[in-house]
């Protein structure tokens, strides 16, 4: 019999605590497949954030450190400087990375820290129950922007990938979407490229993954995927914003 699918070795074969329809599971799988392909599971150290992915260490089958809210890039820096031959990645949500950890991510990129960052942008705080994130779209209703995000009061959503792409130390910066099979395939390629960038020593790498939060968006999973494609992608364009070769491809 031909085997057409298997759980990646870098993932533990167990159910996750993520909500039905949440894209964290897809992102975990893509990262784990990449670790398998590169054959680096035994020298990979992951850094878990504060947020829905705080228990990521329960799902990946490699060494892990759990970091304080937003500090994962600093923790990853400490690890990488002690174990330079390790493959170090952080897995962070938008509250963690784009809000409280904004300084840490910018300076890890500035130093060209040889780490890979998987940035899950679902435009909301998930774990704490649906509050407004820096990435929440204008007009989007959350538990702390009940009338919809209003730019004069709460500012406009931050485009992390574009911002980090202006930093010389950032060798690979891409934005992908986990909303369709084709987009997931592109996401996989970007994640692989990010890890390759780390292994080649070229510098900092980050893949921003547009993701859904059906629970806090108040939508069914399919509806959430459609909302992502019709609302998030127009504001957060997909593509590579910086590559080690210097090429940039949007869209």
């Amino acid at each position, binding site marked *: 019999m031909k085997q057409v699918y298997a759980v990646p070795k870098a993932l533990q074969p167990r159910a996750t605590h993520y909500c039905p329809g949440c894209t964290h599971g897809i992102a975990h799988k893509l990262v784990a497949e990449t670790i398998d392909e590169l054959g680096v599971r*035994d020298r990979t*150290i992951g850094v878990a954030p504060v947020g829905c992915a705080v228990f990521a260490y329960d799902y990946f089958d490699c060494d*892990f450190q759990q970091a*304080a809210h937003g500090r994962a890039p*600093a923790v990853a820096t*400490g690890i990488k400087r002690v174990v330079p031959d390790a493959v170090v990645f952080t897995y962070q949500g938008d509250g963690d990375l784009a809000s409280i950890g904004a300084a840490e991510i910018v300076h890890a990129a500035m130093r060209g820290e040889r780490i890979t960052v998987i940035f899950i942008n679902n435009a909301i705080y998930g774990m704490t129950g649906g509050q407004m994130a820096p990435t929440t779209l204008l007009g989007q209703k959350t538990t702390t922007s009940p009338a919809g995000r209003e730019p004069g009061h709460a500012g406009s959503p931050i485009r992390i990938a574009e911002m980090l792409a202006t930093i010389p130390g950032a060798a690979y910066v891409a934005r992908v979407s986990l909303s369709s099979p084709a987009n997931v395939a592109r996401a996989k390629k970007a994640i692989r490229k990010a890890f390759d960038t780390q292994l080649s020593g070229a510098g900092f790498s980050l893949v921003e993954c547009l993701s859904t939060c059906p629970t806090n968006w108040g939508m069914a999973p399919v509806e959430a995927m459609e909302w992502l494609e019709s609302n998030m992608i127009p504001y957060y364009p997909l593509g590579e914003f910086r590559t080690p070769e210097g090429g940039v491809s949007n869209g």
Partner: protein
Amino acid sequence: MAERKLFKGNEAVAEAAVRAGCRFFFGYPITPQNEIPEYMSRRLPEVGGVFLQAESEVAAINMVYGAAGAGGRVMTSSSSPGISLKQEGISYIAGAELPCLIVNMVRGGPGLGGIQPAQSDYFQAVKGGGHGDYHCIVFAPASVQEMVDLTIQAFDVAERYRMPVMILGDGILGQMMEPVAFPDPVPVDAALADWATAGARDGRAPRLINSIYLRPDELFRHNLKLQARFDEAKIAEVRHEAINTDDADIVLVAYGTTSRVCRSAMDRARAAGIRVGLVRPITVSPFPYQAIADVARTARAFLTVEMSLGQMVEDVKLAVCGAAPVHFYGTTGGVVPTSSAIADEVRKIAMAEVGK
């Protein structure tokens, strides 16, 4: 004895750390401790180590967390406002049972305060400055040589108890120069701790550095484990110096820079016929409660002297436990007490409590 060299306190701490096998330093500039990161930026690359200037104290202490979790011998240094920022990370380091050294060259506060020496960080150093149930082991050196000696021991102590160790200095100790002898460098132990996350190599099971325990019974057990380790330190690591306490009617209690002024005050008072002794805590956490309680059996009164408006005095009162009156004399804001002012306080207490 090794050759003695004239060294500034801050640089002596840095050199001692290197000789103790520290190979990783993450810091952020703040007065009056800048000579430590500056020295490390020159010195660590010579021994194959890494110095990194972080974007903030918050980032620096979280780099320490990552490095310690990966098995590195690691330290950071700062001064009071910077230590406040580090408290988040120190709490996580304590919760995740990671060893490291944190040096605090204390300056006056609150807020931005000043840059002159103070001892007003006692509470945040010894009572657990961050959130949650934990303690650090805190050394309070009183000379440049003692800073060297305690820095060298600090890494072993941190690793033995898997908890953060702090050197609680002050702006004077950091800035003053004294002759010091350094021990020979210790060989860096290549064997990685059996909990370190440096990659699950050679087929071992993955490891986790973590401080989250969502189930109350789990967190209860975890905190009891941390507390049990601190209880071991209370037995094995408490250090103090007692001078002239056997016949003393009045016992001064002071640590660090203030203890040096108190020695002069003690000499002045003794010359005036007042029997004065001094207890100098060398560890302020765990605190030498028993040593002070023992002295309280014969002393008529205590005088705690601090460069604060009264922090350690609370622990002295706990130790004395009503056996004798505990008086307090303090200066704040970067003002150092004078030996004559302390001797005057001693005289007043002698008149009131001892009757002479």
